[in-house]
């Protein structure tokens, strides 16, 4: 049985851990609100952008389409973009993305396709480095970025697009966590290149109005496609940001509760040992007195 001094020390250390996790939980809660706001404010642009894209691509006048839209005809080399967080202590947030990406990679492997990996955020990189180190081609470091701006996303997308045009890969998919609620973040994959067009919406859009396009549709598409891809990455990063804070908040909430339970248990143990020590002493005194 540990002595009283040890128990006391342990209780103190668990108490200070609880203080830290509690503080982290509150910080995460504040950041979560901001991240959620950012994600919400970015939604109108993303919605409108995809609407415009759907509309233009469904127009009859688009003849030979851009490779960003239809792909380059191959399906051999896949680029896997894995967006994770820069910091840990956020529960299963990073590992759930990595797991989904690994499943995808294994599927590609069994199909005989090649793959390359681009990581955003160092946590995912750390988890994948050992297994797929030789497939990693690039890493985007966002640790200095406090608030994710569209600039960050457009830099990444410009990079990806120029790699695509150099035929370094055929299909690009981004993996990230979709923010559902504080307790639930769903890892998701979204295809970036060739870009996915929502074809079921097109029917009712066409009936609304016939637009005059200036210049022609083809040039507008060339102008808009990189923006649409950047927007998708931006949305993914923002969703990821909100999910990270949500995941951290619930992980830290759990940790705080566990620390509380542990303190209760240790306190009971401490009290019992103290009681036992007192009882022992009493027995010694009494038996000493009896002997006289």
């Amino acid at each position, binding site marked *: 049985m540990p002595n009283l001094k040890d128990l006391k020390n342990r209780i103190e250390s668990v108490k200070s851990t609880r203080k830290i996790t509690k503080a982290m939980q509150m910080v995460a809660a504040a950041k979560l609100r901001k991240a959620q706001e*950012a994600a919400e*404010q*970015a939604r*109108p*642009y*993303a919605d*409108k*952008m995809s609407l*415009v894209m759907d509309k*233009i691509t469904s127009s009859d006048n688009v003849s030979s389409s*851009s*490779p960003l839209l239809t792909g380059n005809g191959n399906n051999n080399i896949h680029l896997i973009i894995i967006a994770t967080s820069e910091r840990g202590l956020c529960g299963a947030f990073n590992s759930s993305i990595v797991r989904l990406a690994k499943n995808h990679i294994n599927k590609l492997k069994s199909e005989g396709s090649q793959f390359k990996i681009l990581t955003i955020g160092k946590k995912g990189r750390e988890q994948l480095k050992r297994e797929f180190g030789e497939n990693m081609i690039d890493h985007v470091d966002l640790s200095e970025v406090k608030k994710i*701006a*569209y600039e960050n*996303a*457009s830099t990444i997308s*410009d990079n990806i*697009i*120029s790699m695509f*045009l*150099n035929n370094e890969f055929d299909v690009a998919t981004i993996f990230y966590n979709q923010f559902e609620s504080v307790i639930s973040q769903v890892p998701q994959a979204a295809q970036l290149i060739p870009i996915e067009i929502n074809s079921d919406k097109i029917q009712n859009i066409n009936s*609304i*109005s*016939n*637009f*005059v*396009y*200036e*210049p022609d549709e*083809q*040039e*507008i598409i*060339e*102008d*808009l496609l*990189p*923006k649409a891809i*950047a*927007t998708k990455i*931006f949305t993914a990063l923002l969703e990821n940001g909100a999910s990270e804070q949500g995941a951290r908040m619930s992980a830290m909430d759990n940790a705080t509760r566990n620390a509380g339970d542990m303190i209760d248990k240790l306190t009971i143990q401490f009290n019992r040992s103290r009681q036992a020590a007192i009882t022992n002493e009493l027995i010694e005194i009494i038996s000493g007195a009896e002997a006289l």
Partner: protein
Amino acid sequence: MSNALFNFELVTPEKVLMSDSVSSVSVSGVEGDMTVLANHAPIATSLRPGYIDINTNGKTERFFLTSGFIQITPDEVVVLAESASLEADLNSEMIDNVIEKTKSLMENASDLQKCVLAKKLNDLTNFRNQL
């Protein structure tokens, strides 16, 4: 006629900058400048770098857009701008940054995209010189 209002939205990737009823909007489209009043015919065009003037009952607000897209329907006008800043916040350094970025993009672009980017670069440089 000039008093007729229509819904106008200026949206950037980060947030909705403006969503209001306005009386006219002037933009610089790639094929020329234009002013939109209410009940305009449906048209969609890319924008070149330049100012957008939004007129609400005689009061004008002016933003600088680095690039964007405008979609006009009779009762609603939506501008999707990649970045927008108030005229007061504008400085030549900012535009230089955009120019640098456009140049680096051009290195790897496909032919059609190069054409689009070259136009943009030209517009930006012109704009920079006017400032």
